[in-house]
């Protein structure tokens, strides 16, 4: 509605708009920018908090381990005396058990992945199995120790704390990891390659064996190494199945008692003497970390090599 004196009023109105709205927007942008900067700062801190903390901790532990980590350390048995202590039996124990875990979990895990990706119809049963695997991945590892205790030691009457029981228990623990990463690797094989094989008159198993699996190998290997790294660091399940936290002789066979690196670290963390606290135990930690580093380095190497080779 046009009102009297609208000309002057309209002009004043637009002045008000200009002054309030634009001024408001202008102010708002400034404070928003500051808020944004602070926020970004927190984000950066959050991202680097863990990395920087871990880096510092690693520096500490490597520093403490220096001087204690030598050949004698790697080849001796543990001892009450820090100067004489070594990790040899535990190192062998760890490597022995994890190697067995590899042998058991590879066929089982890849087999399950092949079933889920190539044979199972997309129905309730398949979804149930996949959900179940997801759940198993989230079960605390100590519960797997109870499973090992109740199933292998109690029910199947195997001895406490022997290599084979440790290997079985840890296999069950890492199996979900192997299955999921193998599934992804198998799924990544292009459908056109499968049809190419079937179109030539191959059977399903021939297609899997000669086209799908070879292409999925890098992904499967990376998943395996991840799983084995996990197994290498596992402590609680081994405690539950009765593995010794400290042992003086390296295991000889599948039915020998054994101990593992993380278990020894756990035991030594109780020793308050300086030689242990800032010497032997850090050295043991460094040995474990170096083994893990080597394993993951192999995984990265495999992944690089295969992705270059194919394309």
């Amino acid at each position, binding site marked *: 509605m046009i009102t009297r004196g609208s000309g002057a009023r309209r002009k004043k109105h637009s002045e008000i708009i200009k002054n309030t709205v634009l001024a408001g927007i202008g102010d708002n942008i400034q404070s928003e920018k500051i808020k944004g900067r602070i926020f970004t700062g927190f984000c950066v801190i959050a991202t680097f908090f863990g990395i920087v903390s871990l880096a510092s901790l690693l520096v500490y532990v490597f520093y403490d381990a220096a001087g204690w980590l030598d050949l004698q350390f790697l080849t001796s048995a543990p001892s009450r005396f820090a100067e004489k202590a070594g990790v040899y039996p535990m190192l062998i124990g760890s490597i022995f058990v994890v190697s067995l875990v590899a042998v058991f979990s590879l066929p089982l895990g890849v087999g399950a992945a092949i079933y889920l990706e190539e044979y199972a119809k997309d129905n309730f049963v398949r979804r149930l199995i996949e959900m179940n695997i997801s759940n198993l991945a989230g079960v605390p590892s100590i519960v797997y120790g109870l499973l090992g205790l109740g199933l292998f030691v109690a029910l199947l009457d195997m001895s406490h704390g022997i290599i084979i029981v440790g290997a079985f228990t840890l296999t069950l623990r890492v199996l979900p990891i192997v299955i999921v990463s193998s599934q992804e690797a198998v799924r990544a094989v*292009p459908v*056109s*390659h499968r*049809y*190419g*094989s*079937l*179109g*030539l*008159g*191959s*059977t399903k198993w*021939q297609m899997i064996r*000669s*086209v799908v699996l*070879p*292409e999925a190998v890098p992904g499967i290997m990376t998943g395996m190494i991840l799983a084995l790294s996990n197994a290498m660091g596992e402590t609680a399940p081994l405690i539950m199945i009765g593995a010794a936290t400290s042992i003086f002789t390296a295991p000889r066979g599948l039915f020998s008692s054994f101990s593992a690196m993380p278990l020894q670290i756990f035991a030594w963390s109780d020793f308050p003497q300086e030689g242990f606290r800032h010497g032997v135990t850090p050295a043991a930690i460094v040995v474990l970390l170096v083994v893990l580093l080597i394993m993951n380095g192999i995984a990265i190497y495999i992944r690089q090599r295969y992705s270059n*080779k*194919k*394309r």
Partner: protein
Amino acid sequence: MEKENIEEERDVSEPATILDVSKLNFYYGDFRALTDISIKILRNRITAIIGPSGCGKSTFLRCFNRMNELMGETRVEGEILLKGKNIYDSDIDPVRLRRNTGMVFQQPNPFPKSILDNVVYGPKMYGLRNKQKLTDIAVESLKRAAIWDEVKDRLHVSALSLSGGQQQRLCIARAIAVEPEIILMDEPASALDPVATIKIEDLMRTLAENYTIIIVTHNMQQAARVSDYTAFFMMDENRSGMLVEYGKTDDIFTNPEDKRTEDYITGRFG
């Protein structure tokens, strides 16, 4: 139609029917994708299947090697007789059928293996282990696929290092290596450049001396250039594929009997 003489380069005797399709109806689940197809494919001839997109040409092609079954719930009514035996009989092994019917896909799909390993893949799967025989087969197949000269020095190189056109000829060599009677080609040149396309078309004519070729193509000029017989498909009102007209390529393209064929050929639709 089958009694007429063909050009001198070909087999002079009357071409026989190798595949006799009789009232074929094909269902994906409840959807009828093909309706009452009846057609006789002749041995050692190139038969082109043309028609607008979506009218079931590729589905029809895949009926010959039962690849459709891999894609879900399917049902077939009618018959496809291969030299008198219905390939949909329950005692027919689809895997063995596919050994007799090679397939070349629209996108070249060599395996990420060496050229040699690609070609010998089929024979190896069937149990042939003798390295010398495998190599002989590979050489012969690569020659027949007109790619031998280009790859003879690099048989152990990855197949993925070849150009698109070369990869497709490699796929043809791979299909030939298992000595099929029939080669199915689903738009084999549509992903290739014009030069590579011409090479494929020349290759097809050579291959027809030894194999029966059925090719699906959306390129009418290609069908006219390459094929001996042409089948024109269309979608009916239920979106199901049907055969409108089938005959010698020359007749179809110069003097079609059905008006719909004429409309398609002259570009009035599709």
